[in-house]
């Protein structure tokens, strides 16, 4: 059943915006883009391996998604469908550029995850080094492992969304994630033992 209402906070739902965009309301589509451009850009960056490629890919993806709105099932969630298009564009660009390196992710020095109390300086340094190693270990994984870990943990996509991005069944996401995590543990274990 198509929800043409609002989200309860007064803002129209994605479904309502899609319906308006289908009728030619570009402003409605622009609002959809604004809502999802951050996660779309980050997904593209993760898959393509570069911010520049990601920007081009996500723009093309949104234009293609607009053209394909007629084929979009109105009762389906918009974000997974969109991210599948984004990932496809990003993957194409990565293949076309021959890029092999992963996106060089960093973490904000002053952003301490969670609601931890400020650690001692020594603990802060150790935590910083640990997270840097974890990020480096992720970047050393092969693309398939990096993508599934990146989608589920770094982008915080749901299993359904990850399945759309990776173009595989939900069950395959589980098994891929399990294997990727095993390889990451091995990688981190090997680093720790040095």
């Amino acid at each position, binding site marked *: 059943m198509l929800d043409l209402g609002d989200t309860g906070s007064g803002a129209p739902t994605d479904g309502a915006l899609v319906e308006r965009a289908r009728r030619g309301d570009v402003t409605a*589509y622009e609002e959809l883009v604004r809502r999802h451009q951050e996660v779309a850009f980050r997904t593209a*960056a993760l898959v393509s391996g570069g911010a520049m490629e990601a920007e081009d890919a996500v723009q093309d993806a949104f234009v293609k998604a607009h*053209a394909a709105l007629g084929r979009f099932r109105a009762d389906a969630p918009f974000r997974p469908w969109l991210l599948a298009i984004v990932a496809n564009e990003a993957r194409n660009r990565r293949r076309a550029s021959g890029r092999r390196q992963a996106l060089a992710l*960093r973490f*904000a020095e002053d952003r301490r995850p969670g609601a931890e109390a400020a650690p001692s300086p020594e603990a802060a340094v150790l935590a910083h080094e640990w*997270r840097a190693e*974890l990020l480096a270990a992720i970047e050393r994984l092969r693309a398939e492992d990096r993508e599934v870990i990146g989608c589920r943990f770094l982008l915080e996509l749901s299993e359904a969304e990850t399945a759309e991005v990776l173009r595989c069944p939900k069950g395959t996401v589980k098994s891929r*994630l399990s294997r990727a995590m095993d390889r990451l543990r091995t990688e981190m274990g090997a680093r720790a033992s040095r």
Partner: protein
Amino acid sequence: MSEHPVNRPDRGGLDLERELAALATAIDWPPTPDVAAAVRVRLAAGAPRPSRRWWFAPPRLSRPLLIALLLLALLAAVATAVALGLPGLRITFTSDPLPTPNVPAATATTSTGSPPASAPAPIPGSDLGLGTPMALAAARARLGVPLLMPAVPGRPGPDGAFVSMVRGSAIVTLTWGTGPDLPPLRAGSDVGLLVTVLRASVGEGLMEKLVRTGTTVERVEVGGHRGFWVSGGEHLVWFRREDGEVVDVPIRLAGDTLALEIDGRVVRLEVAGGREVAIALAETIAER
């Protein structure tokens, strides 16, 4: 609420799921560009509206006839691509390598025009993704029409020239390094003046669609040439090429911009100091 995998400690005491979940909140992602504005412009420039039907419903044709039609369509597409470049709504300002690698790269010179004694200084703007650096003469040749640029007092010419190819058309960007009369375009920039030249016209409808919160677009006329003064922060600038394609020139500087259409070319000028400084420089634009 997204479903995170259940936390479970593994062998060796490493709670990797928890660490990864914590890492997610600390990632310093690249800043998200303003995709919405760019998409809106592309859609306004003529992207097809969404259709409620499949765009292609093959008729019931005999197999040989269908194959013949497909081949004809393929040949037509190839011919079009060769003649015009691949059709598309958007032509991207790229920094792809040009097919003439033997053109000597531009090197920075001092304001007196003499080459540096030791290692050449970085070319102003070389970190902006403006394209392939090259000598000014080579950049002129790539443009295919006479190059337009302002006269900057005390400077014999630009310090840097870059060319980017967009679907077979050249976009030439010239940079002048900072100095007493050319403050940096923004804090930390080594560019005091940036001029982009391409064969196009200023798309009035497109320019007005760029207006976003905090950005103003003002029509101007300088030396009898029409154009726009865009102010208020970083923005995309779009032009319509001779063959009708829409071109975006996303120079990634938070600068106010003067864009003028001069005899089949668009000259885009960024300089600190505001509208009047830009107009004063633009009044000196000539073929050089």
